[in-house]
């Protein structure tokens, strides 16, 4: 025990190896008394180890077929161990540390409850990469974003005028770290999406690149053909809108937007729908 209260900074290393780490995250990595990390690629691992010799991988907490909740609980406990001992701890996790990372949020919550300073630094998630690589701007027509299994289990409502992003389509119905279920989950997903969009509606199976010199995966396909596609836990499905949203004339009137302006907005909306259509995506 050092006498001072411990602290915790949770950072993300982004998707692209090394290149997505922010300056702030790098500072936290370098200066931590204890650096814990969970990154899948050997380049980021080697780079992190070169920055701070007091580092330890959390990868050993993963076990085949072990329930995710148990893994995340063990991870949270390991992160808090150093904080409770009065150390400045940095936990580095690939992607955004607050997106699909229960342990990141939970460690911060518990640390704060116990009186420690705790903070998460935002980072680049695969969704951010998708916006950049596929040219999708969520500010134009909005964005619906769901984890694929949750989307199916909860029968989430879809607005077909808004881009839809489904995460982890390659591991639908999988709750541990075993291999995925293959096409079974994709069959169900194809069926549900086809009811809303039609089986011929085009979508993209997307995977961000791990290196700047490599291309991301962006495979176009009809929704009805989803079950035949090869996917992994890194696969995200992007479904562009099938039609533009209707304007609310009552709201236009209340906002004082005249018909000409409304028509201009309609034209802009049509442009937006076109720009986010599959035909203009790379």
């Amino acid at each position, binding site marked *: 025990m050092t006498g001072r209260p411990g602290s915790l900074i949770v950072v993300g290393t982004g998707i*692209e*190896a*090394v*290149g997505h780490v922010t300056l702030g995250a790098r500072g936290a990595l370098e200066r931590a008394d204890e650096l814990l990390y969970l990154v899948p*690629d*050997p*380049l980021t691992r*080697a*780079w992190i*180890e*070169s*920055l701070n010799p007091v580092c330890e991988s959390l990868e050993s907490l993963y076990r085949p077929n072990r329930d995710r909740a148990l893994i995340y609980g063990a991870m949270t406990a390991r992160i808090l161990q150093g904080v409770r001992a009065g150390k400045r701890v940095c936990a580095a996790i690939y992607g955004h540390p607050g997106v699909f990372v229960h342990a990141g949020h939970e460690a911060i919550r518990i640390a704060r409850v116990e009186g420690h300073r705790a903070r998460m630094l935002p980072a680049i998630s695969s969704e951010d990469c998708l916006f950049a690589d596929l040219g999708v701007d969520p500010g134009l027509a909005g964005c619906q974003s769901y984890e694929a299994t949750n989307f199916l289990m909860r029968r989430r409502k879809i607005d077909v005028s808004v881009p839809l992003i489904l995460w982890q389509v390659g591991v639908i119905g999988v709750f541990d770290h075993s291999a995925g279920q293959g096409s079974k989950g994709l069959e169900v997903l194809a069926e549900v999406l086809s009811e809303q969009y039609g089986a011929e509606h085009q979508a993209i199976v997307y995977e961000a*690149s*791990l*290196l*700047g*010199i*490599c*291309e991301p995966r962006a495979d176009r396909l009809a929704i009805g053909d989803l079950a035949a596609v090869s996917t992994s836990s890194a696969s995200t499905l992007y479904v562009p809108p099938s039609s533009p949203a209707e304007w609310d004339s009552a709201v236009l009137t209340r906002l004082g937007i005249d018909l000409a302006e409304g028509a201009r907005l309609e034209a802009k909306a049509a442009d937006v729908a076109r720009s986010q259509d599959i035909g203009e995506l790379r």
Partner: protein
Amino acid sequence: MDLTAFLCELAQDPILVEEFLDDPEQVMDEHEIPAYLRTLMRSRDDVSILGALLGEGPASA
């Protein structure tokens, strides 16, 4: 230059990435990338390139 150091340099320099995409041979010459790694780099397959790192030592920051 070893593969880890070269990839770290590329990761921190998007202009160097552009130069690599324009003329990979020149960039690899300048960084003295050994012949046995050049085919791998030309493949631009991230999984294969990162997989080749598993036998290498620590990176230089």
